[in-house]
């Protein structure tokens, strides 16, 4: 094979099998989820320079079995996703020195959680000179698991991580709004203090696909 600097060299005479089952957060099978085997994907949303080696879709019972080419690369990934209404799952590993047993990547149960739009508005109705400091703690709708061989590396993984947003609003910037994608059924913690009074925390269960929350202070 011609060797060029930016070319990906697939392994000759080799095919791999990627299998597993896709379920949502209620253990309900997710059909039609797209399973993509790729290298040089990058992290999180994925890069434009990724190379697709194989792809397929989950069946009506959520199971998938995809035959793909294989590439020895430090950035080898299997991505499972459906659409913007569901979280994305990414399996990552370094295949330079790792070839799975029997050339099979068994992802077992892949959890794609249904997402909800959490529309957060905070509006000052109390007039000038009142301030608020708040934070929003929520679960990110994304899961990347990094494996060293067959062992999960938690340090390099980022699976349904807790994220936090903090802001202080005052006369310069009295109102604010956020739109966050949060797995349906998760709890968002809204913690605030008005005019440096004691902190108060409200727990919001995201039980609707479009959850609007408005807070006045």
């Amino acid at each position, binding site marked *: *094979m011609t060797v060029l600097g930016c070319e*990906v060299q697939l392994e000759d005479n*080799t095919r791999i099998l990627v299998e597993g089952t896709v379920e949502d957060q209620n253990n309900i099978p997710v059909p039609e989820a797209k399973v993509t085997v790729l290298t040089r994907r990058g992290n999180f949303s994925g890069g434009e320079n990724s190379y697709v080696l194989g792809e397929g879709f989950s069946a009506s019972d959520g199971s998938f079995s995809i*035959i793909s080419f294989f590439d020895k690369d430090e950035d080898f990934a299997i991505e499972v996703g459906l659409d913007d209404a569901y979280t994305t799952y990414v399996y990552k590993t370094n295949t330079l020195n790792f070839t799975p047993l029997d050339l099979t990547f068994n992802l077992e149960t892949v959890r794609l959680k249904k997402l909800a739009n959490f529309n957060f508005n905070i509006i000052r109705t109390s007039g000038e000179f009142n301030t608020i400091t708040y934070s929003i703690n929520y679960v990110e709708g994304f899961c990347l698991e990094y494996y060293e061989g067959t062992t999960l590396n938690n340090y390099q993984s980022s699976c349904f991580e807790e994220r936090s947003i903090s802001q202080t609003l005052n006369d310069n910037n009295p109102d604010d709004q956020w739109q966050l994608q949060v797995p349906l059924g998760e709890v968002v913690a809204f913690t605030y203090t008005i005019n440096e009074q004691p902190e108060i925390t409200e727990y919001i269960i995201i039980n609707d696909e479009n959850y609007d929350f408005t807070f006045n202070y």
Partner: protein
Amino acid sequence: MKIMTLRSIIKAIWFIGLGLCCSLGFAQEKQPEGVTEDTKSSFFNSQERQRFFAFMIGGHKPFTSGDNFMGEGLEGKSGIDFKVQMYIYKHLFVGLATSASYFNVTNQERLGNYRKSRIAENYVYVGYEFFPTDQLRLGLDISVDSDLDYKNHGFSNSNIAEQHDSGKLNRYGLYLQYELTKHFMIYIDYSYNVSKMDIMVPSELDNFFSKGTYHKVGLGLTFSIGSRDLISRFVD
């Protein structure tokens, strides 16, 4: 490495064969004395239609079949063939062939994320010719050694140029040639081809990838040189 070796051998024998043709094919060839017209022609033997070398050039259409990666995932488009065969004794011949067959991928989920495949086939074969009528000759042949190179290409990202699979070919062929002149023929041929693949796959996919089957139906031209087989040149 073995693939390269067989290709090199085939190329070398091609040139040697051409050299032999030039030196022997056009030389004066005497017919054995005492041979009458009656004894020369039968279904199994026709001394007057004996030849030394035959060269074939043609095209073919491949048809995949079977419950394997070719039958389930490839669709034949076209192909080209070059063959030379030397008659060892009477109408028993040994041949060298180099062919290419082109396919479209119809099932990427089962084969991988590519759109096209080209098989380069190099093989050695033996066979025998029969003579059903005055102007027809029927040949049967079988491959005895071979190499196959599958070049898989047409990936969604152009920076993946190609990927290769290799294997061995078991080929069973027949052809029918119509003699326009003594040394110029047109032919149609058919072959059943079984690729024994070297692909490493998970054990549950062994049956699917261990072999591929395809048929070929072809059409082409044949040129022949010489009127005596190899052995008779030394024996008679």
